[in-house]
């Protein structure tokens, strides 16, 4: 049981909007000697580079947060509250919540709260409490920068071991890129601290000099490694807060490419490069990504926004070295990035408008989303994603291939949804259809099926029979319409199918948010 634990539950600061906006801590000064890390450039196998333990680190199930109760952490700065008070916590604390309350130290009441913003890719969320009583005599916390290596920090929270607030202290052990276990595909800057962090610390502030320098969020369970805990540092927090200024969280942006270091002398000469230790080579350009149709396989990236890219993929940044993707990490949807490159030995410069690379999202966990599906003739069709792979423990080699190579082989171009026949609700109409389980829908009555919506439309037509061609060899799955219609009510009532399909791709609206009107309005 090697697992990286997400220390679920509690809170961090209560802070006024203005205060947050003013806190212009240096956006991202990675410390000296920051070890290599690839950000979202290597999305498919979400194994971070770094300590050997990490690849096997599995996300812990988010702690029970049906009634998450983030508590105010400490009484240090209790005074007044600025307009628009917000409480910051981890995304995994409030993910999939149905009802949320918060408590504060010294106050016997539980206050209903609602989620304002959730950023699953960086495991941060903002919640608010509508009752003004909650904020009485409370002073918002402010942010510091990235703490120095070896400097002392204190983690506040309500971890297991008691009811009242706990404080633990330790030093900053490492500043590095880490896999953010909550989504399981995102890698961002994270700070490793030696302060004890345990389940219940999640979302709690890590303080230095009375300023918040991070949000405690994950670590290893004791049977894997001791004293390895991580906090989300302020550059990541600031990026989140800036992103949501327009009332909408746009997610991280990414170039959407994979690359290799260029450290082989022969390869450098082949590509027409000097022996100057610069440049990385583009391997795969994700067509749906920002760099799609701009960059090509074999392009040599020489500099990004005028920062020369080392052959180890690092750039000089604010006195330190960081992976070149860090330049992109700091940007927002719609921002541009300039790349100098060598294509067929000829120099050129391109400008790329940055966007989220959506195919990556299927490779990570979904939250606050109802699973999408169609039940038809007792057959359950679902689009392939990480949660589906895990839920069904998929071993079918074709399904595994479609999942593993969905992004890299650009399978999404033909199958934006890879629709799998995952389950069969037994009924006389489908008695002999069991062998079709785990096959992938390709066509219905000669029409290519790219998305779940395509499939719903195909099933809404009224042919004599539905001939469902699956990917690969095998006979088509044939459903006679009269049979499906005859079975419909029977299946609905027998299996208590309340809704025969859910095509909605939107996250579930937070229940409380709907009534109170979020900040976006």
């Amino acid at each position, binding site marked *: 049981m090697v697992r990286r634990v997400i220390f679920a539950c509690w809170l961090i600061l209560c802070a006024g909007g203005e205060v947050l906006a003013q806190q212009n801590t240096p956006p991202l000064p990675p410390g000296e000697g920051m070890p290599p890390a690839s950000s979202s450039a290597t999305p498919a196998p979400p194994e971070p580079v770094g300590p050997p333990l990490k690849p096997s680190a599995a996300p812990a199930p988010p702690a029970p947060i049906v009634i998450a109760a983030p508590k105010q952490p400490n009484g240090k700065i209790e005074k007044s509250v600025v307009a628009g008070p917000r409480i910051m916590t981890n995304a995994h604390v409030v993910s999939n919540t149905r009802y949320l309350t918060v408590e504060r130290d010294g106050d016997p009441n539980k206050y209903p709260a609602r989620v304002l913003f959730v950023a699953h890719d960086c495991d941060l969320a903002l919640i608010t409490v509508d009752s003004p009583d909650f904020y009485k005599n409370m002073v918002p916390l402010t942010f510091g920068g990235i703490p120095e290596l070896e400097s002392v920090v204190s983690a506040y929270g309500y971890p297991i071991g008691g009811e009242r607030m706990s404080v633990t202290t330790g030093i900053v052990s490492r500043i590095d890129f880490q896999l953010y276990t909550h989504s399981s595909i995102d890698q961002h800057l994270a700070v490793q601290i030696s302060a004890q962090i345990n389940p219940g610390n999640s979302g709690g502030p890590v303080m230095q000099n009375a300023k918040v320098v991070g949000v405690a969020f994950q670590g290893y369970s004791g049977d894997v490694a001791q004293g390895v805990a991580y906090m989300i540092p302020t550059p990541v927090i600031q990026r989140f807060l800036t992103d949501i200024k327009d009332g909408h969280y746009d997610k991280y942006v990414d170039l959407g490419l994979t690359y*290799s270091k260029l*450290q082989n002398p022969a390869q450098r000469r082949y590509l027409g490069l000097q022996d100057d230790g610069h440049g990385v080579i583009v391997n795969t350009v994700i067509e749906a990504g920002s760099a799609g149709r701009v960059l090509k396989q*074999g392009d040599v990236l020489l500099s990004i926004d005028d920062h020369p890219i080392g052959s180890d993929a690092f750039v000089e940044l604010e006195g330190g070295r960081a992976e070149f993707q860090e330049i992109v990490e700091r940007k927002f949807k719609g921002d541009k990035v300039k790349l100098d490159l060598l294509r067929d030995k000829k120099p050129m410069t391109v400008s790329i408008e940055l966007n989220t690379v959506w195919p990556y999202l299927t490779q990570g966990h979904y939250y606050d989303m109802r699973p999408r599906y169609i039940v038809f003739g007792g057959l359950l069709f679902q689009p392939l994603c990480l949660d589906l792979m895990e839920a069904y423990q998929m071993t079918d*080699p*074709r399904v595994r291939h479609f999942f593993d190579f969905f992004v890299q082989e650009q399978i999404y171009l033909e199958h934006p949804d890879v629709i799998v026949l995952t389950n069969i609700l037994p009924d006389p109409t489908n008695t*002999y259809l069991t062998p079709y389980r785990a096959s992938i829908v390709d066509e219905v009555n000669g029409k290519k099926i790219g998305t779940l919506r395509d499939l719903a439309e195909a099933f809404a037509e009224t042919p004599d*029979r539905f001939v469902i061609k699956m990917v690969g060899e095998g*006979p088509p799955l044939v459903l006679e319409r009269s049979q499906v219609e005859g079975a419909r009510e029977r299946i609905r009532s027998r299996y208590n199918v309340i809704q025969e399909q859910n095509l909605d791709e939107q996250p579930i609206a937070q229940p409380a948010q709907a009534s109170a009107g979020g900040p976006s309005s």
Partner: protein
Amino acid sequence: MQGIRLLLFAAFSCFGVTNTFAKKDVTQAAVQPRQLSLVRVNVTGQGFDYFRPWQKRAPFSKRALGAVLSQGRVLVTADLVANQNYVELERAESGEKTAASVEVVDYEANLALLQPQDKKFLEGLPPLELTNDTVVGDRLAALQLEQTGALVVTDGLVTAIQVLRYPAEVGQFLTYRLSIALQFRDNSYTVPLVKNNKLAGLLLRYDPRSQLMDVIPAPIITHFLKDAAKPNYPGFPSIGFSYFPTRDPQLRKYSGESGNGGGVYVTGIEPGAAVQKAGLRVGDIVTAIGNSELDQNGNYIDPLYKKIDFTNLFTMRGYSGEKVPFKIHRQGQPMQLEVTLEHRSADDYIIPPYSRDEAPQYYILGGLIFQELTRQYLREWGTNWLKDAPQRFVYLDRFQWELFPEGHRRIVILSQVLPVNGTIGYDDVGYLTVTKINGKEVHSLEDLAAAVQQPVDGFVKVETVEDPKQVELDANQAERDGPRLQENFGIPVLQRLK
């Protein structure tokens, strides 16, 4: 312990169990112990290391029994003699020994024939006859030997006769399943089973927990012996197509099938297979093979076993070279095809399903190790190779016919990189599927060997399906690195081609 462990390797899978339970006198003793025609067989050998294809694995030795047949032949399982260096026969009663040679071996049917170098060695051992009439309910006796040469007899009941995969995972063969409490002896590798002092089968695998044994049955042995008598061993006919039951009434109607007839739906055809030459197509429904009608699950009524999977018509009942009429329905229309049964050898696959006795091929260029993808290579990941081996390779293996319908090629992989001057910076490279070398498509190691001889502007360029997509070497540097590689990694030769 090795003998016991070797017996454990297979998990039983249950399908197509025949329910024919012929009434027999189950109390009848299967064997009257007397001097039987058994010899000990001692084998030493060495397998090949596919991760270091230039070297062999540590030597092994196995002790087994062989059944003495007519014409001075000794029958054993093929697994016993796989990758053998030396085979020796030993008279159980006297300990007398002689070297033996492997005359014929069929890894798919898991049978091999040995012949002693000393022709007189088997004198005094009356050859075993075969008995082909075993049916469910019969009792068979497993024969083993004590150290002293005394016979150890264990009695077992044939609980099922079905068509199963053998360890080579090629084709499906008739198998007896026995309920038997086999004891451990150091010759447990090949255990003969007899009925009325006639050979009824050889041990295929045994699961000590369930005490179930799978037996290579005498009819398969008879088939093997008939083939072995031919000048060129032809091998068991291959089926060459994949199929699907036609039980679903909606599929039947769609395919133009009326009524409740039988037949299997053809889902895929291996390129170059006998059935393809005969004109069989995907979507056809095969209703009869020879005189045997197929039911909707693909079973036919066998004169001896009653309902059993139709693949038995190919492996047990069919012989390579025979012309067999296939009755099919194409879009509801009855048609007849004539299929000349044919064996498909492991070499005819794109990714050979097994390789024994043959050193793996490889080509090392300046630290890059190129190999051809084989299932033997994938098996290096252990029994869980389907899950643990590189998924791309598993996928290529599983869907080879679908992905390469043109057939006739190999998949060349860049399996790993040895560190040397010329491969600096390529430490992460490995498990890649090679598409081109110096711009030329590569469909075999021979293609690769030819293409690397033609560097472009002094560089050898390797293109791969996976990232990093391209790897370049300085052709001269690669040449210079050769001797150092050989010395550092103990590689006798940098290439081994066909």
